């Protein structure tokens, strides 16, 4: 007999570790914007300060070789990184869910073609088109986000497609069809609730990859030169790595900020993956699945 099915993907309270990770990531994303709104730091492009000045009350992390404030650059880099990643995640979610659900509605022969097409997209290293495009055009960040999302949707679309197909093969889905349910009803009442728990998993996975790709592009000197990036900061600071005082206050902060952002996103991907598998509808439908301890599955550790 079918058990009570929660309409929302989250049936249980998240653990303290998950809440801490979510809070930390939220702080990393929002604090730099608050800094910008309240004008707590100087303009990251303001070059009026003494170059390579050490840490002081006026400049907590000192200044760069160009005479800009390091902390202001760090905040600007975090803003650019989070905005780019959120935009990519939004584009990616639309593409992954659109393609995954569309694939589930296709007839057999077209579904095979759909699967091969996703294989091709999965095989394309996302960094290469971005590098090729950056080398010639230096496109704006939103265009890079759109291109990156169009290269990252495929693995997630496969996951969504498999979940939707499992739902479409269920007895109550067949019963609804027998009772005369139309495609919109089936989508709204069966497929969408079945794939809804995957929204945080897919969104955070794409967010994490976008943070890394944006930093890599900045590090390689292919980001928009009018935007401060964490990768660009690292690349610039690395030129002075032989000066211990400089790397400690200029190189290390973006390294730590990037690691924190990716690490916290990874923790949330894992936690939301566990919940999608063990805490949501799947557990009520799949009698073979046993509840695992938090962090035990590892299924979503690929990020």
């Amino acid at each position, binding site marked *: 007999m079918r058990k009570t099915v929660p309409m929302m993907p989250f049936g249980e309270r998240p653990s303290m570790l998950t809440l801490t990770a979510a809070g930390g990531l939220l702080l990393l994303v929002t604090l730099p914007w608050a800094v910008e709104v309240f004008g707590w730091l100087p303009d990251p492009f303001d070059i009026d300060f003494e170059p390579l000045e050490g840490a002081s009350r006026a400049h907590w992390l000192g200044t760069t070789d160009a005479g800009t404030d390091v902390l202001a650059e760090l905040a600007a880099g975090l803003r650019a990184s989070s905005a780019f990643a959120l935009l990519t995640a939004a584009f990616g979610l639309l593409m992954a869910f659109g393609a995954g659900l569309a694939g589930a509605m296709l007839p057999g022969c077209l579904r095979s073609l759909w699967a*091969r097409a996703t*294989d*091709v997209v*999965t*095989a*394309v*290293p*996302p*960094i*290469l*088109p971005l*590098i*090729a*495009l*950056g*080398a*010639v*055009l230096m496109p704006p960040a939103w265009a890079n986000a759109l291109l990156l999302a169009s290269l990252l949707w495929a*693995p997630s679309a496969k996951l969504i497609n498999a979940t939707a197909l499992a739902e479409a093969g269920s007895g109550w889905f067949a019963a609804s069809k027998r009772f005369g349910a139309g495609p919109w009803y089936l989508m709204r009442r069966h497929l969408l609730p079945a794939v809804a728990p995957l929204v945080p998993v897919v969104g955070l996975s794409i967010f994490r*990859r976008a943070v*890394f*790709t944006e*930093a*890599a592009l900045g*590090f*390689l*000197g*292919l980001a928009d030169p009018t935007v401060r990036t964490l*990768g660009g900061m*690292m690349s610039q600071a*690395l030129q002075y*790595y*032989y000066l*211990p005082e400089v*790397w400690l206050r200029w*190189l*290390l902060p973006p*390294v*730590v900020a*990037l*690691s924190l952002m*990716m*690490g*916290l*996103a*990874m*923790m949330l991907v*894992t936690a939301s993956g566990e919940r999608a598998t063990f805490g949501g509808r799947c557990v009520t439908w799949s009698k073979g699945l*046993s509840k*695992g301890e938090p*962090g*035990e*599955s*590892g*299924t979503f*550790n*690929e*990020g």
Partner: protein
Amino acid sequence: MSEWRRVAARTGQFVVTLLVLVTLGWGFVHVLPGDAVVAMYASADIVMSDEVMRTMAETFAVPDLGTHLVRTLTLDWGTSFQGGSVTGLIAAALPHTLMLAALSGMASTVVGFALGAASAARRGTPTDRWLTTIAGALHGIPEMATGILLLLIFALGLGWLPAAGASTAFGDLTGSAALADRLSHLFLPWLTLFLTQLPSAFLVTRAVMLKAFDAPFMLTAAAKGANARRRARVHAARLALLPVLTRFAVRGALMLTGLIVVEAVFSYPGLGSLLMEALAMRDAPLVMGICTTSAVGVLVAGFVIDLLCMKLDPDAGRAP
């Protein structure tokens, strides 16, 4: 489906994907606004005559699709703006990248697999908890950050290892001294990739092994008299090997980003560093050559791993 049919189907899929990728690469360059000449001189304070512009536009014109496919298949990407042939420059850099990618990939897979299997066998013990915690913490750190931290600690702080390059410039070393010199230069880029790839191999192995321990075939193995060690090593570990290997096929395209960045951090003279040089000079033929080679490399690696998995899969050929 028989094994041969599966191999033939996978080969066909590989060829089609390859053709699609090369065609997309050509189409991508074709639809971009402007051309290489505009890209190179648009922002320069040079005024060129129409004739010079025409000659340069013909030299750097994008060929038609047929010519592009033939050139790609014959590994001919034309002449780099640096002067030499693109193929020659790539051939000089490729061995460094292949060695780095292969050594780090193999080491992280073997060590991650062994540790994951051992941890799963000791489920719930302090060893298991420590290993899982360390792997989870390492898993979030990107290659860029790991590489920079290792560079600062081992090359700058302790001075134990060289910070850049593949060998000591003007070192004039021979024999074992030259080998040791090359290995010392390889160590930090290798360690960076090893440490960033290890956690996923560990976590995937552990997760699959834990699921395998509860599977009915393990009960059958126990009923047939296989002891705990044999059940873990022969039955569960074999099952875990497949996802560990297939993670390369699935994530190969993403791992390439890390490889390029690590080479850039350590100025290791592989494809990543060559790409940085090409980008700095806006050397479009070289950039396209490197991108195509890298994409094909990822595809070939995925194809080989797929074939290997078909051999290892205990269900191969038995499925209806």
